[in-house]
């Protein structure tokens, strides 16, 4: 469902993107230390899950490229829904599906199973917005893509901690 993987010395599509500063680690509050009080899953917690995903092309994270932002993350813990919008760095970015897939996989692996995870492109920021959104929403195609070992490796690379 996704085009060929990056690498092989092909030139970057967007060789000199804008970079954004990383937000720091979320400080641990006294409430979080308390054994008894529940902490609900909030936007920041979801954002923390996806902000360190590596961009497939740059040695930068999605947060540094501003592909994901905390304001574009919406979670409803009670109704078990998560909606994430991501913004490709350029409107013709061929990696958009791969980036969306990485976000989706990261959230599916990291969130309780009760959650319904929807990942879309920020409206108006990509030439093939509708097609990419439709692919990402099709769980059958996502499942088939993740059985492709090559693609899975690329996704895992995006999700791996940076050396």
């Amino acid at each position, binding site marked *: 469902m996704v085009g060929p993987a990056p690498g092989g010395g092909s030139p970057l599509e967007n060789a000199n993107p804008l970079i954004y500063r990383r937000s720091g680690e979320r400080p641990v509050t006294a409430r979080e230390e308390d054994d008894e009080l529940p902490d609900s899953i909030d936007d920041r917690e979801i954002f923390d899950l996806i902000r360190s995903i590596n961009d497939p092309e740059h040695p930068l994270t999605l947060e540094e490229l501003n592909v994901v932002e905390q304001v574009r993350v919406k979670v409803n813990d009670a109704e078990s829904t998560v909606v994430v919008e991501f913004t490709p760095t350029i409107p013709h970015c061929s990696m958009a599906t791969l980036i969306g897939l990485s976000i989706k996989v990261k959230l599916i692996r990291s969130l309780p199973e009760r959650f319904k995870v929807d990942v879309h492109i920020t409206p108006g920021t990509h030439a093939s917005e509708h097609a990419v959104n439709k692919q990402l929403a099709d769980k059958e195609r996502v499942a*088939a893509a993740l059985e492709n070992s090559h693609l899975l490796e690329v996704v895992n690379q995006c999700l791996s901690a940076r050396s």
Partner: protein
Amino acid sequence: MKDSLSLLARIPAHPDSRCWFLAWDPSGTLLASCGGDRSIRVWGKEGSGWVCKSVLGEGHQRTIRKVAWSPCGSYLASASFDATTCIWKKSQDEFECVTTLEGHENEVKSVSWAPSGSLLATCSRDKSVWVWEVDEEDEYECVSVLNAHTQDVKHVVWHPNQELLASASYDDTVKLYREEEDDWVCCATLEGHESTVWSLAFDQSGERLASCSDDKTVRIWHQYKPGNEEGMVCSSADPSWKCICTLSGFHTRTIYDVAWCRLTGALATACGDDAIRIFEEEPLSSPQQPTFALTAHMPRAHSQDVNCVAWNPKEPGLLASCSDDGELAFWKYQRPEVC
């Protein structure tokens, strides 16, 4: 509406995986399930409970998306993401893979036997629908490759008593095919859904077809033959299909499956919002513009997306369902006294 659907049993059919699809054998005594764990399991009733009679493990390299019983009940076909379709022959409780059908370029999404048992249809992400002919020696031959869809084909199903084939696709349409002079042709395109059509079901007569979609609606289509009493215009010698009812506002996420009970006429849906819903036609509504009422709603039928619903062909009201949580559930449906 309360208590119209009650849980009979729940089984972790494909643990640590998702359960994609279910199929009752024609006698209604066996249920086949398949899933992401690359296995098929066949379930039968023992006493009051359901037990696994066989596990068909060695046929496929990847997810098994759908399974279908032959009309005689002696064969089971399985469609897999590994681009093949396997034909399993049953003898007592044993199943043996007798043929592997190859040809699709990538994931096979669905498989279906024609009522005669001599034809089989498969479809794939490669946008094609293939019709296979079976001879007495269990030899399979591809008789047609239909490239009518412009995208991934999600589902194929045969008419209950004619050699008419229907397919549903990612291109938002449903298409119908029939044989014409030794070849198969697309004879109708049903447009109306606004997103991927995931599944299809004919009613008992074959006059009506239900389709369900990512656009969160179910549509009911009616067949009008040339020269019909209602005066519906047909552009050619082929019957024409019109959408006579749209069930919208009931589902909150993608509808993955629809099943039409051949015994009771009840229509069940499997939805990505974890719910199972059952609809029945209002007795007094007009056949040309029927209205359907929601007669049962089980909000958390499973802990994750419901992928499939299947009515038992012999026992009225017995419904099976399966989900991404890997579980298989059996339900008893009782039509409520007052709708």
